[in-house]
């Protein structure tokens, strides 16, 4: 009895993983380039209204955001269920907007200051009373360029 095992249980050859890291790195760089860091987490629920005539917000570094909406479920015990304003990463009052604008303005070089835009990112259920108050504060603070956030959509 010849005890020679014919070696034909070859199996599939292993995949070469050498270029795997290159591919993943490429993906990584792609995402790093097209995205921006999330600046602060939202405390308020926002579903922006839809519009057909929306345009892109230019020069992101010159934009400060005012978020308006009902606090998220986790924060309702603390902040109530009425629409609130979020500036940076804290819930604030309308009267805090002046200071916020002032701080934003001082953090930019003088040449950029007239170009500063304030984006109002408000939930579509918010009443205009609050938005009007915000606009009055912005007028008083001298931040005249505003931007109403909306998503591109079709007509209702």
């Amino acid at each position: 009895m010849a005890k020679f095992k014919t070696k034909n249980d070859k199996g599939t050859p292993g995949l070469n993983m050498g270029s795997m890291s290159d591919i993943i790195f490429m993906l990584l760089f792609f995402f790093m380039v097209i995205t921006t860091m999330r600046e602060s987490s939202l405390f308020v629920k926002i579903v922006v209204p839809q519009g057909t005539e929306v345009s892109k917000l230019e020069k992101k570094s010159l934009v400060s955001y005012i978020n308006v909406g009902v606090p998220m479920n986790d924060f309702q015990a603390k902040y109530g269920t009425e629409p609130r304003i979020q500036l940076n990463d804290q819930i604030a009052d309308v009267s805090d907007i002046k200071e916020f604008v002032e701080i934003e303005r001082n953090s930019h070089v003088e040449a950029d200051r007239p170009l500063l835009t304030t984006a109002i990112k408000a939930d579509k259920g918010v009443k205009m009373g609050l938005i009007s108050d915000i606009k009055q504060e912005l007028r008083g603070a001298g931040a005249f360029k505003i931007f109403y956030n909306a998503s591109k959509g079709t007509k209702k």
Partner: protein
Amino acid sequence: MSKKSTPGLNTSSMADISFLLLTFFLMTSSINTDMGIARRLPPPLPPNQEPPEVHERNIFIVKINSHDKLLYNGEYGRIEDLKARAKEFLENPENKPDLPEKIPTDIELLGTVDVSKGVISLQNDRGTSYDMYLQVQNELAAAINEMRNNMSQAKFGRSFADLNEAQKKAIEKAIPISVSEAEPTKVGGTN
């Protein structure tokens, strides 16, 4: 000389490391989707100044009440009609006496064009929803964009978005965004 080659680095975990980095960036970043309508607020009025007088024919009043219903110059109206109404008001194609007057103005690149003196006055209530307000702003923007597009097609043969800066400026001067916002009323409730 012993020719001992350096042992190769084991790079099989490189992919794992870069995967980790990739997931980190995917989670902490967001793809930019900031779209919206840009507007300019008027500077605050000096306290003792009377508002300038505007001739009745030059003003188109749009009111939104706390139930999101619209009133155009005192008549009940629908949002679907707003764009057409605003366009008719600002263009006044037949030079009707009850629609705004037009002033021939010299504008670089365009020559002499009629610039409408019409102002759309927008008044909302404190109880108006932001959604409705934005819909109205959107319709007004649509009317103005359409007029600008028409003019740039007529003058330059291209759509407004494809014009260069100087041409855009000229058209913006010929068709300004003449929307004025009045102080909101307080009929409809608290907030």
